[in-house]
């Protein structure tokens, strides 16, 4: 495995996302040094409740991502409903209204593939519970660029379709329970 210190974490989740993320995000300290970018599949007409919901539980700062803002360490960014979230090579965030990918906007693949371009090996990608195959190709792109690929253990995932698809597409991804993912995120940020 590579020993490049990670510069960012990207997470994708769908059905069962809130529960799964609640096992990971509150475990991270306020001064967690990396930005965490998250796509959760949500209906386009919903106001994004995720940021306030998780801000109440987390020590890190939690926000909805804004167009062209720099991704800062210690901050958790959620993709807004009905927009793709992408990372530019200089590490700023972009939004787009490009077509749905696998019926989804935001799409996990779109975030992961752009983040793999921007951060290369210095990236951790995490695919959590979900009922479709979004995230599988993106996780493969992260692994191909030398980054770290983690997947929620299909045996304990709320819906295992997305973890299984990710493990199938990305052979080097490691499956583990949610608490182990939180531990892993702590380790990855240490050189």
């Amino acid at each position, binding site marked *: 495995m590579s020993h490049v210190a990670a510069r960012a974490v990207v997470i994708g989740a769908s059905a069962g996302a809130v529960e799964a993320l609640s096992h990971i995000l509150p475990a991270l300290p306020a001064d967690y040094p990396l930005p965490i970018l998250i796509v959760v599949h949500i209906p386009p007409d919903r106001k994004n409740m995720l940021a306030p919901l998780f801000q109440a539980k987390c020590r890190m700062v939690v926000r909805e991502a*804004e*167009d*062209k*803002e720099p991704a800062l360490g210690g901050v958790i960014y959620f993709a*807004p409903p009905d*927009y*793709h979230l*992408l*990372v*530019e*090579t200089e590490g700023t965030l*972009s*939004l*787009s*209204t*490009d*077509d749905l990918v696998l019926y989804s906007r935001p799409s996990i693949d*779109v975030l992961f*593939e*752009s983040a793999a*371009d*921007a951060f*290369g090996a210095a990236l951790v990608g995490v695919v959590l519970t979900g009922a479709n195959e979004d995230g599988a190709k993106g996780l493969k792109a992260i692994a191909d*660029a030398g980054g770290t690929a983690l997947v929620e253990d299909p045996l304990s995932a709320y819906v295992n379709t997305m973890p299984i698809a990710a493990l199938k597409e990305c052979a080097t991804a490691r499956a583990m329970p949610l608490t182990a993912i939180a531990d892993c995120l702590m380790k990855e940020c240490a050189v």
Partner: protein
Amino acid sequence: MPNETEDIEFRLLLEALYQRYHYDFRHYAQASIKRRLRQARVQMGFANFSAMQERLLHDEAMLPRLLNYLTIQVSEMFRDPSYFRAIREKIVPHLRTYPSLRIWIAGCSGGEELYSLVILFREEGLEERTIFYATDINQDALDTASKGIYSLDRIKAFTENHRLSGGKSSLSDYYSSAYGGAAFDKTLRDRVVFSDHSLVTDAVFAEMHLISCRNVLIYFNRELQDRAIGLFRDSLPRNGFLGLGSKESLRFSAHAAAFGEFVREEKIYQRREP
């Protein structure tokens, strides 16, 4: 490192597009553009961006095909109904005070937003005194917009959006089924001027009372966003209105001081004293 090579090829491709055809995507937000070009590369069967570049330089027929990947944006009529409700309830009362109106839909793509505004203005009795300028850099998009035919499976969402926007008529009053789609009434285009215009390279062309430019700026980098917003600033007299997409803002713009928030939650701004 294959990605580094691809990055070089990607920049060269954009440079070729600019030098050969004067379409300048070099300062667009790169992540989306690269994603679209990768899609084009795969679907057109090129091994890499260099092969695409060679074809682009030597075969003019490649240009419109590539532009369709780079610029076509599928929207909905009355997308974000609350935006159109705000135009109707908060902007229209101001616009009524002018004897004639000029409205600019910048980056009109397939025309969904244009028809939404024309219908809204007709419902409010303002259409007759208004000229709508619908601009885009993609000729195919302008052609689509000037035909006004949308596939029938999209009409349900359009109709619901229109209702939520406070529509005072039935959307079905404005189209008829034809060519396997919904063809919008050609009289909706009586007051529309379609024109090729680039926010990246072209200048101000008229004084406007309202500019609607939604989900276009997110495709630009900061510098280009500022150029476009500068054009809007210079196109608007005092008290003119600018409407942006729900996730766009003037907060970080060099021109922020030239605008005040008019309907904050809908990203509708008003031009301040020059």
